[in-house]
């Protein structure tokens, strides 16, 4: 039986509240741009945000809007609208929700406060087929120009070969040309500057991560999911740099004072898969056992796990191509598995929570490999269960909590032995 026992997540940091304000500001600017008749772009995937900041384009990103709708428990309603229009319930909940928001003739005031129609669409197939296909529907719906950025999958691991860099750079150049064709001015100096800022941000993010590795951890995945927003959406902006400097300083202070998310931290967990945006309190649920979700894999989607020394701001497109193609979320699995195993060790993780979003074409295929590789590498167990982080209609509170209870209890028992 589906219940609706949902609670918001508890955030502990001042800076994440500031990041939330910045999100509101971002969408306010989008609305403003639309009013000023500046073309608005819809985009998504691993397309590096830096190219949009370089042309000062107002962009609505597909990943983020459904997440906000989920947090307000509105995502199910808009998914239903998409389903009534022919979308299969088996395709990605994010894309269904976004499509429903686009299709809905009458929108909730909350959605209306930040939703803007597209003048251009820039799509990609990184990292999955949903990214590659779903915007075609919107392009038809709004009859607007569409550009497709083709990203090769990563079959090379950490060493992306020249021909792949060259190809993806050409795709990014194509996106810039497309934007220029539709009224934006491409400024390569600004792009270089944006890449420099992006590198600064990743340096700060790595410092933040190092602080989070401290026991007790000063920041949980609830704050982490908000904190990842600049990494993804504000990459290459001064705002992003400033927010991360503040976050780093706040965490430094907490570490200095040995102030953890919870008192008497006994277990540290890693969340893999989409977290329950409609019920972020579930991430805090395990805290009653002295367990903290110290990290969430989703924080690294779209650009958190690359070697910044390999990005040359003087060759911005090549650098961004490397950053995108090496991303852990870009299939195939090699980088993802290595990265998670390494994180488990560095964050001193005791167990992994694997939440399977049934409608996702990408992540479910990773779970067994993650489970086995982390167990082999670090002897750390994983629990895997169904949980669509966006579709509250499929949420079963009792079963989900039962899964968490038994996993955490068994971890505690084995720790006591």
């Amino acid at each position: 039986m589906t219940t609706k026992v949902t609670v918001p997540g508890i955030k502990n940091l001042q800076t994440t509240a500031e990041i939330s304000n910045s999100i509101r500001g971002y969408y306010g600017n989008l609305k403003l741009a639309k009013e000023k008749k500046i073309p608005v772009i819809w985009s998504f995937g691993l397309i590096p945000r830096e190219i949009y900041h370089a042309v000062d384009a107002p962009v609505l990103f597909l990943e983020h809007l459904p997440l906000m709708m989920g947090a307000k428990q509105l995502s199910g309603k808009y998914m239903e609208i998409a389903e009534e229009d022919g979308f299969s319930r088996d395709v990605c909940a994010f894309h269904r929700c976004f499509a429903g928001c686009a299709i809905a003739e009458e929108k909730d005031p909350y959605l209306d406060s930040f939703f803007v129609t597209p003048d251009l669409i820039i799509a990609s197939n990184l990292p999955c087929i949903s990214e590659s296909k779903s915007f075609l529907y919107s392009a038809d719906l709004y009859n607007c120009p569409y550009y497709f950025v083709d990203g090769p999958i990563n079959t090379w691991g950490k060493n992306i070969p020249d021909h792949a860099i060259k190809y993806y750079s050409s795709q990014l150049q194509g996106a810039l040309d497309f934007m220029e064709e539709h009224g934006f001015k491409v400024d390569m100096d600004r792009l270089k500057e944006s890449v420099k800022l992006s590198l600064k941000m990743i340096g700060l993010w790595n410092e933040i991560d190092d602080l989070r590795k401290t026991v007790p951890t000063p920041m949980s995945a609830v704050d982490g999911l908000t904190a990842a927003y600049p990494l993804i959406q504000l990459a290459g902006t001064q705002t992003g740099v400033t927010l991360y400097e503040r976050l780093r300083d706040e965490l430094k202070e907490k570490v200095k004072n040995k102030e953890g998310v919870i008192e008497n931290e006994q277990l540290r967990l890693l969340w893999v898969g989409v977290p329950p945006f409609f019920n972020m309190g579930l991430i805090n649920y395990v805290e009653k056992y002295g367990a903290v979700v110290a990290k969430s894999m989703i924080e690294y989607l779209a650009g958190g796990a690359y070697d910044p020394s390999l990005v040359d701001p003087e060759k911005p497109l090549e650098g961004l191509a490397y950053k995108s193609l090496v991303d852990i979320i870009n299939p195939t699995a090699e980088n993802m598995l290595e990265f998670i195993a390494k994180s488990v060790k560095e964050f001193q993780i005791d167990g992994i929570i694997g939440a399977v979003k049934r409608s996702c074409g990408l992540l479910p295929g990773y779970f067994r490999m993650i489970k086995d590789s982390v167990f082999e590498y670090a002897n750390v167990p994983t629990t895997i269960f169904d949980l669509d982080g966006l579709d509250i209609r499929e949420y079963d509170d009792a079963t989900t909590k039962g899964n968490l209870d038994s996993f955490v209890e068994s971890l505690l028992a084995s720790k006591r032995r």
Partner: protein
Amino acid sequence: MKTLNKIMDIYDNPMQIIDKFKAADKKIVGYRCLYVPEEIIHAAGMVPYPTFGVTQPIMTADSYFQPCVCEFVRNLFDLAKENKFDFLDELVLCNTCDAIRHLYSIWNRYIESVPCYIINNPQKMHDEAGYLFYRQELENFKIEMEKLSGNKITDNALQQSIELYDETRRLLKQLNELRKRDIPPITGAESLKIAIASMLMPKKEANELLRQLIDEVHDREIEDDNCPRILITGSIIDDPTIIELVQDMGGNVVVDDLCSSTKYYWYQTKKNSDPMDAIVRFHLERDVCACMHPSENRYDYLTELASEFDVDGIIYFNIKYCHPFVYEATIYRKKLEQTVPTLILETDHSLSGLGQLKTRVQAFIEML
């Protein structure tokens, strides 16, 4: 129908082909999907072998993939776990969908008997930068095949392989042209089996049989009750049951748009003095898979196919979680319905919900 029966026998018992290859000490390279160039494998002196599934419930694959991953791919993995692909010397995949990408990673981790390679084809057609990228990927693949076979792949050998495979495609298409008639001389199910058997067979043998078959069925008459003419498209169909079901319900499947059939043979390689370039362009200039862009080409292709074969209705057969075609059907349905009634079916590869499908197909055919 001596030749037709012979081809049906090959479809029903494909192991006879494999046994012959093994007896001749030939290396066999399995592949899936259509962006793997068979000609490169063949030019290395090996046998390209398209891997198909078996209509059966999933056994162990669910614990590796999760049940929400395409059932066709899980079925292939099940077969591998049951050692049914142990006759392969290597499996080659390509970049078509999320499930195939997972199959590559999961196969290499959990199937020890057969190594797996993936070709990183672009998903954008008609793009010069994409041609260069794919060319490099195919050069790497060529080296891989040379290593596996121990043979150097010469341009001459590659050119000959292209000609041989083009001839198979040409003959299959010629046979398919006969289905444009008011009363096609071969059924939809037969056509699928002929295409699959031809894909499995050595091409010289396939070409010989196809030539005989074209003569053999030329004047064949099949009973026809003026059935509605149907185009079937969507995910892979490797079992004719679904086509037979349409026939049983009174539809006549006169053409399909399936990777186990027409998509394999619809296009010919364009003449080119550089055989690798010819292969690159062959793959990136044909509108066969829903994973590719631009997508409008697929819509144009489908509507032209429907018009050429004078189709009364289109049926999308989508395997659950086959995201490329599930999206495509959603996007095209309204547009297609403006000219041709279109039915979208979503079911398992194992066809577990056949009864329900039957009802929906029957209602659709009656409506036509």
